[in-house]
């Protein structure tokens, strides 16, 4: 059962990968990055799943889920958000020079 969840996470990661590989729009590239990140985070969160688990808050009735992935995910979300913020800032900067967000036209540096 939990394997399906893992498979979904991997599928999401691959969608992100495909997005950054195939889309020419820079914004879509950034979106692809966030999708990739979501895939990786889904993997981590799924690892903490316990069947019938309750939230890890101290008056617990029954078996709590694994709290460690939650902590990791919280941290990683913030990191991903920062990445995206910076990426968007740079996209704005690049747009200012090229007047486009088409990746295939942003090739000033080559060879």
């Amino acid at each position: 059962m939990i394997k399906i969840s893992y498979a979904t996470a991997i599928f999401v990661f691959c969608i992100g990968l495909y997005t950054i590989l195939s889309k020419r729009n820079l914004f879509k590239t950034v979106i692809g990055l966030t999708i990739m990140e979501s895939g990786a985070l889904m993997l981590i969160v799924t690892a903490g799943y316990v069947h019938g688990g309750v939230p890890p808050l101290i008056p617990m009735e029954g078996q709590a889920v694994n709290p460690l992935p939650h902590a990791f995910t919280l941290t990683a979300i913030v990191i991903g958000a920062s990445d995206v913020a910076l990426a968007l800032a740079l996209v704005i900067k690049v747009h200012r020079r090229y007047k486009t967000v088409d990746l295939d036209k942003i090739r000033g540096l080559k060879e």
Partner: protein
Amino acid sequence: MRAMAFGDPVSMVFVASATVLSLAVLLYNEWYFEGKERKTFRFLTVGCWIASLGALFAQDWLVFVIFVELVSLTLWRMIAFADPKAALIYLLAQLGAAGIMLIGVAGVSLETGSLAMGPVPPEWRWFLLFGLGIKTAFPGLHFWLPKAHGAAPTPASALLSGFAVKLGVYGIARLGTFASAPELLIIGSAMALFGVSMALMQHDAKRLLAYHTVSQLGYVVSALGVGTLLGVAGALYHSLAHALFKGLLFLSVGRLEKAYGTKDLRRFGGRAAWEMPYTFIVFIVGALAISGFPGMSGFVSKVLIKEALMEKGMYPAYWALQVASIGTVISFCKLGYYGFLSGSKEGEGRMAREGFVCFRDFSGLLGMVFLAAGTIFLGLGAGAATSFFGFSASGFFARSDVFSSLFIVFLGAGIFYLAKGFLASGFKGALTLEALLSEALQILASVRSALVKMHSGSLRFYLALAVFAALAILCYLAR
């Protein structure tokens, strides 16, 4: 780890040749160069000398390689004065050689735990031999030599031919002292024949001399391959002699070049014998020595080598060297004839005249005379010189040797007289090795342009390549 020490007779011989040649070249520099270049060359010559002393006194292979590289660097700088491109090829070849030697040295140090110069385990010997082979210009690995010599200013050529390539020989001598090495015999004979046949086809005076360097080193290498004391002695003697007379020949050709402004045999005009008599005289000394004329240094060393070969019954090599000797004579007849004698006494207008106006002119000649004196001393004082190695020289002026040498000289002269017209033209691009090299460079260039195409600036392509590489890594790891 004792990295340096004063050497035994083997290194002392090479030290002597380096020192004498450097002195002569220093004197010659004064005449050859002007102004700032002269200063630089003085400095470089001394640097080259010191570095080669370091290489010769080195007690371990690593230090040896380091100092040989330093020698290459100084020579590179010298050649780069005249032709940066040829100098670059020279340096790259030397660096590659050093790198391959380093692989061998690394193996030796790992296997035996020491870097001491001397015989090495057979597996690593090939690496060292290959590296040293590039330095010594084994046939097939000699691609850098004619280019470098052809381009270099004369003093640099003299140094290059005189002892830079000898450092390779020194390394080979250290590799297998007193052990018969058939591969060296084969390589040596091939070198001697190959060098001579290439030399016969040249009409660039310096390239001709350069190919003779290959051929003469063939003698040395095959003598080392004999593996007896006599063989080693012959090799050392020939190295020393060759340093002197080849230096001498280069310097005299350099004077011709400077006087007539060309290196092409066909355009010298052939009046130098009258216009530059002193140069002519020292040239004759050098040419006789390289031809093995009795009384000259080349005679003694060649006889030593041939004796060593005969003693062990290595006849194929012996005959190969004999043939090479004949070729040598022919080619030096050619050089002498077209360089000095072919033109009429009364040419159309004097182009050059040797004069001794100032110290510089004198100094240039003095360098050559110094070398000529050394050559003659090594020939006539063979007894004194060979006793250095613990031989008596009495056997070496045996009548049969003298006659056979004379026979070779006259045979060669005769052949030259008959085939003069044929030889004069010279051949172009006879061997395809350089073509092969340029082919390899072509392949490299096309790889490079493919790489350049990859750097298209397209982020998507970069990422796709990265992901593809990731997939490849996954597949490899899952093997």
